[in-house]
């Protein structure tokens, strides 16, 4: 399960475990040696994770065991009540939606859901929504507006599904509509990129007042693999493409695409999901609290300005 660059970390923590087992078996005191190794482990984790390449972060963002949208929904939110279906085409399980409490406040929550194992992943189409998923999200936006409930979206998708039915049902049309509908919300909206923010399929539920990203999550216009296949004509150049695309949390903060980065525990969210989720929950409450003082007009204007000003331009001389 470990990512390639995690091997030295895993080896060292295995050694510590072995030493512990040996100490208790033999009933001898190795606590000094163990704490020495633990110190070394912590430094090693820091060194590896402070210096991750962009491609390594892509791997962390996709790592098995990383908390998924439903993990957050079940641990950070209370009394989550799932609401199903788009009332037109079906119920897309790659997009989970419902009502819940967050810090005592009723909210509408929308999460892009990858599977936690292979079986669930297949059931959830690897987190790639069909038009039905975006229609369901738009139904939730309508409900949020009607009842004045804030919206929280959890973004984690390789992208909108590229398939025959998806295209026939207007994948592009619903993404555009969802972007538009979300931009018109009269209630506060906060989006968190928790894993993979894959292109238009992610942005469709990312037009929020505040857009946050986890430290090892990514948000990109195209996957490094597809980018490499087009620009280098070789998908195995994905690490190079990941570097070029500047898709990490730090890069996106610098570009103004995200407003804040939520730190992950050393070793990544998959090493300590509980701590990660607590952090995200606290941050969400804080952001919603801050936004709750804004009027409808202020919320609309802030969101408009946030997206209207995206991009870098130069004057023609």
């Amino acid at each position, binding site marked *: 399960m470990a990512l390639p660059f995690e091997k030295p970390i895993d080896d060292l923590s295995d050694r510590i475990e072995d030493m512990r087992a040996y100490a208790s078996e033999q009933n001898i005191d190795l606590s000094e040696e163990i704490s020495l190794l633990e110190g070394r482990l912590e430094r090693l984790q820091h060194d590896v994770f402070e210096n991750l390449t962009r491609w390594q972060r892509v791997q962390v963002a996709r790592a098995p065991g990383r908390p998924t949208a439903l993990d957050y929904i079940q641990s950070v939110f209370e009394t989550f009540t799932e609401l199903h279906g788009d009332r037109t085409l079906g119920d897309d399980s790659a997009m989970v939606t419902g009502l819940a409490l967050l810090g005592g406040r009723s909210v509408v929550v929308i999460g892009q859901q990858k599977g936690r194992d292979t079986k669930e992943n297949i059931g959830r189409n690897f987190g790639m929504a069909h038009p039905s998923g975006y229609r369901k999200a738009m139904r939730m936006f309508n409900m949020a507006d009607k009842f004045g409930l804030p919206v929280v979206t959890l973004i984690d998708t390789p992208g909108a599904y590229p398939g025959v039915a998806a295209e026939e049902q207007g994948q592009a049309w619903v993404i555009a509509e969802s972007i538009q509908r979300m*931009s018109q919300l009269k209630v506060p909206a906060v989006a968190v990129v928790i894993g993979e923010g894959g292109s238009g399929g992610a942005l469709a539920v990312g037009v929020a007042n505040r857009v946050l990203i986890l430290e090892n999550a990514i948000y990109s216009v195209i996957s490094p693999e597809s980018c490499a296949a087009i620009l280098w004509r070789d998908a195995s150049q994905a690490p190079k493409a990941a570097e070029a695309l500047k898709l990490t949390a730090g890069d996106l903060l610098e570009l103004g695409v995200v407003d804040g980065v939520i730190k992950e525990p050393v070793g990544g969210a998959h090493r300590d999901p509980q701590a990660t989720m607590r952090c995200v929950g606290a941050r969400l409450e804080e952001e919603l609290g801050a936004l709750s003082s804004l009027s409808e007009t202020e919320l609309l204007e802030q969101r408009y300005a946030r997206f209207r000003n995206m991009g870098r*331009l130069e004057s023609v001389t």
Partner: protein
Amino acid sequence: MALERWFRRKRPTRSDDNSPAGLWLKCDECNAQIYRKDLEKNLYLCTECGHHYKMPADARVAMLADAGSFERWSGTIKGADPLAFEDTEPYVKRLERAAERQKRPDAILTGAASLQGEPVALAVMDFFFAGGSMGSVVGEEIARAAERAAREGRSLVTVAASGGARMQEGALSLMQMAKTTVALEALSRAKLPFISVLTDPTTGGVTASFATLGDIIVSEPQALICFAGPRVIQQTIKQDLPEGFQRAEFLLQKGMLDDVVTRPNLKARLALYLSLLRGTLTPTATAAVGGEPGGAAV
């Protein structure tokens, strides 16, 4: 979201090729030998079979704007290189070369015009500039055109031709989808029509943003219109795609377009839509508008 075609060595026939070797071309559709000058005089339609070639942005403006009415807005801004992007060559080099060849700073031409007397803002994408990909400049010009149109009481007509988002600007190019979308709000509030014309090809981030948010959406015959390109889908599902998949006529059947309109009829059709939506059509003017109301022109 691919610019596959732009980077592919073997390209389809370039209707803007002005090299000596490009004097004659063989029609992609019917194989007829066509003299390039005839193609240009014929709105870039095959003189034999009517196949719709990609139309350069200036020719498109000349076709849609009433004579002498076009006043250019775009051209004062150009792309930065926010990512210092480099693949097989630096992004700035690609931009410079494209700008020089296309004689504009980026893949879009916007301006004010009258269209059979209707005041419009035209925003025409230039596919021959980096595959018509949408980065910060294209997004900004479209947003400005929409907002200025709203201020000046003009309808907006966009003509899309795009390989999608410009990946050399990373997530900032993705954000142009939201930028162009929020800018359309000004037109809506002013109750001004936005008509979106989709031409071959309209794909990726352009299809999934402003281009499919028109009050009326029409396409030229046979245009490829999609979110994910056919190659990507084929790789995903590992099956052959249905006949005509993602082409204009197919999407019309699926309910995604208002109509498919041939190029010679496009201007009259746009004028008809605009005047009906704005309530400026009078019975006597109907004869002058012409067109083929009611039917899908193929």
